[in-house]
């Protein structure tokens, strides 16, 4: 079940990107998962939901994007930057 290893790597990359203190502000984590990446998307989504529900995260939503090929990468993060909408 290497999906949990991959989910942990997603969390590590997110922390490196925004810093640990900002992880609670992350609202969405988007991962591109190729059809031939050897990854069960529902399984990865479950692992991410579990990890993103726990501190230092605060319930960010996993977004898994299916593409052809074997691509497997963290695509983008969405953050609530605390400001009111203009």
């Amino acid at each position, binding site marked *: 079940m*290497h999906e949990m290893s991959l989910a942990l790597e997603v969390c590590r990359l997110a922390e490196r990107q925004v810093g640990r203190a900002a992880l609670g502000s992350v*609202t969405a984590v988007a991962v591109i998962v190729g059809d*031939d990446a050897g990854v069960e998307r529902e399984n990865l989504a479950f692992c991410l939901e579990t990890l993103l529900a726990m501190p230092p995260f605060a319930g960010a939503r996993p977004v898994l994007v299916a593409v052809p090929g074997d691509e497997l990468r963290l695509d983008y993060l969405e953050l609530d930057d605390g400001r009111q909408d203009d």
Partner: protein
Amino acid sequence: MAVRTIEVRERLMAKNDEYAAQVRARLAAAGTVALNLVSSPGSGKTRLLERTLAALDAGLPMAVVTGDVQTQNDADRLARHTSRLVQAVVTGGACHLDARQVLEALDAIDLPATRLLFVENVGNLVCPASWDLGEAARVVLFAVTEGEDKPLKYPKMFRTAHYAVLNKVDLLPHVPFDPDLAEANARQVNPDLRFFRTSAHTGLGLDAWFDFLRGLVEAGRPAGVAG
């Protein structure tokens, strides 16, 4: 709420691949050829390595890194056939070896005195396919007690392998298994696969396997494999 989007676009395997590159560099510097041995549980990886160590180790110094979810039973079995190091990695539940584990295992191996390194991966035809361990080539085993359609069911493993060993062929008279169909299925996934048919139990076909390994070490790397 104002939402800010941060583009990351980073490969999830990037860190593993960094470690794999370090493994590859250390092996290249030492002149050691490494093979990553993968299969489902019970296909005969450990038995094949036992026979290989017993037959070749005297003239072809080898080391083995074994990966198991629990126990170091495979390492203990292999250590009976060689005075050289067999390094066990117990993954503690993980279904595959990663390159960091192999890099750490290399610290315990006298690489310049090792011509051939086997990495016996965790028995699993799914997860190990995704993890580059820094090997020169990947060898996938399957046995005649499995289905001929294994390559079609687990295409990534067979697509990323360079060599295939069809093992337990001594059982062919007793099981409904068509080895030609199995090879055809594998070549449908990966036309470049080179096949060996062996019985690690009786020794059938092992001479060709041993000759292949000798040639591999002589050449310094697998024929037709980049790197």
